């Protein structure tokens, strides 16, 4: 131990010497002592980040590369190292457009996923923002309301799936029961294709509290002085919201939007725990359903589908970033 300490001190003083020497232009950089120290520093650094390097290699890079190779083969899911199956070139990609069976499934799932994305993402962004503005008022009991609104987020996805499965039961469900009692007809919920998607969106509105909390944190970061000077200029509450709050929040909107897109494109567990299948007439056939449905018998095809999804997410993210001129960065940002 004492050895190490002295070495540390030595390296400390030598680094000062290096800095001094470098300004003079002499080549201390090449001295063996300096090099040794540099190597040691590098090794220590890599030691600390070793877990994540291994993690990225084993649990991200390996499966992604493996899936990419598999996407050119017609394989059943099997343990690693056994035969790859038949090499089919780009067939797993192309058959989404040429084979009528795969084409129907592929485009149906794309349609469902995009319909959900373009309705739910803007809806949840706007509503959770309004909620946050509402709960950002300076009146008593706000903390209590915040907790209340956050409660449904705490229900685990699988519990909320089984809960809503029972609540929305057309015959025994609590909502339809109540509607019938007051003389209104029950809602069809997930029993018809047309009402499935609206029902699914409605159910997801209960988790608005999650993004609301993010907004609230962001609203607290808006400098108070901006509001003060706006008030002096005679701007009303609404004007302050439009001209100060929203512009300052735009980086957050962008981040939220991209993360929502990535999340929504992978919707699966919420649906499977709720309905157990892809809905009446595949009305809830989200993209990932096809990946999971094919993963055992058509592993190569499932891999190709995941790479197409990767591409779609990549393009959507890139387009969002490219068109993000509306984002306003403060000096600190």
């Amino acid at each position: 131990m004492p050895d190490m300490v002295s070495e540390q001190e030595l390296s400390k003083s030598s680094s000062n010497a290096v800095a001094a020497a470098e300004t003079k232009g002499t080549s201390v950089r090449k001295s063996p002592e300096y090099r040794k120290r540099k190597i040691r520093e590098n090794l220590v650094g890599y030691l600390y980040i070793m877990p994540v390097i291994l993690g990225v290699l084993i649990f991200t890079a390996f499966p992604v590369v493996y899936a990419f190779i598999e996407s050119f083969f017609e394989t059943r899911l099997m343990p690693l190292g056994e035969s790859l199956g038949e090499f089919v070139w780009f067939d797993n990609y192309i058959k989404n457009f040429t084979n009528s069976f795969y084409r129907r499934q592929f485009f149906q799932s794309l349609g469902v996923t995009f319909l959900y994305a373009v309705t739910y993402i803007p809806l949840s962004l706007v509503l959770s923002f309004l909620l946050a503005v509402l709960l950002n008022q300076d009146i008593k009991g706000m903390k209590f309301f915040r907790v209340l609104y956050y409660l449904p987020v705490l229900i685990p996805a699988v519990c909320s799936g089984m809960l809503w499965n029972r609540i929305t039961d057309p015959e025994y469900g609590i909502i339809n029961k109540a509607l019938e009692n007051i003389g209104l007809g029950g809602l069809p919920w997930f029993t018809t294709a047309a009402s499935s998607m609206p029902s699914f969106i409605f159910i997801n509105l209960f988790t608005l509290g999650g993004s609301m909390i993010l907004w609230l944190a962001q609203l607290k970061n808006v400098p108070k002085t901006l509001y003060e000077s706006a008030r002096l200029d005679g701007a009303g509450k609404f004007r302050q919201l439009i001209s100060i709050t929203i512009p300052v929040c735009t980086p957050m909107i962008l981040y939220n939007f991209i993360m929502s897109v990535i999340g929504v494109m992978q919707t699966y567990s919420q649906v499977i725990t709720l309905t157990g299948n892809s809905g009446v007439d595949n009305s809830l056939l989200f993209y990932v359903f096809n990946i999971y449905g094919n993963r055992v018998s058509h592993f190569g095809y499932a891999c190709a589908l995941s790479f197409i999804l990767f591409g779609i997410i990549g393009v959507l993210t890139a387009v969002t970033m490219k068109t993000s001129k509306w984002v306003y960065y403060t000096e600190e940002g």
Partner: protein
Amino acid sequence: MEHEALNPVLEPVAEDPMVIEGRKRRKRAKAMRIVGKTGSYLFLTALSLFFLFPFLVMICLSILSNKEILQQVLFSPTGTIYLGTYRALFSSGSTYLRYLLNTLYVAAITTVGIPLVSSLCAYGFAKLEFKGRDVIFGIVLGTMMIPAVISIVPLYTLYAKLGWINTLFPMWVPSLFGGGATNIFLMRQFMRGIPNDMLKAAKLDGANSFVIYLRIMIPLCLPIMLFVAVQSFMGAWNDFMTPFTYLNYGSESVTLALGIYWDYGPGSIKFANEAMAAGVVMTLPCAVIFFCFQKYLIDGVAVTGMKD
């Protein structure tokens, strides 16, 4: 009299129509504020009924007896609370108990492991200097953009090779390799806020980098570590896709999320009170933890909010 003499100007001003107008306006504004406040409260209460609805239904149904469930009511007509369903969940030999123990096992490991591992990595990225540090960090961040489904399916083959199918390993081993890009990012952001002078002083006193990590970084990073720990617990507790992908039906290693899906999920013929009781028991730890660590969770979110 003296008073009047002292304040000769005030008296006439009070009768000035402008002042009276001003007072009236202030009164009206106050009345408006009160109306606005009551309106706000009414609206907030109505909304909270909306958000409480799923929670209330779950709890109400869970304390009904089988007979009352068949009557399709939300509250017991006789006003009794039936806890038999809860007792059944925890009776010896119930599968639910095994699900719970499996979940606790996974959650305990990840809740302790992820903050430790991710703080080690974050310390490397935030405070140490070595070649390629920023490039590697960029790659780690980039993995956040890769959809999870792309790796979760092919990893099946790797886990099959390792003999991990139908075991608990896939649920906790991968998370100990770095603890996730988001957590490393959060920790690194937090650590960068810690002044370097402090570390330099410790270095001059002869502390090596690990001592600095142990003695300075960890105590200072406790808030963010707690945040990551809570998030890891919730993540492990709620994780559905991992067991769903790597466990077969009837496996010994089923966790709560998958067990509830199989036993009470879509197509189940079990009574609603049983299902809801199972749900309430699973939700309870999340709710308790949220209430205990509310402040840390909100603060942690504030860090997330600073992302850009």
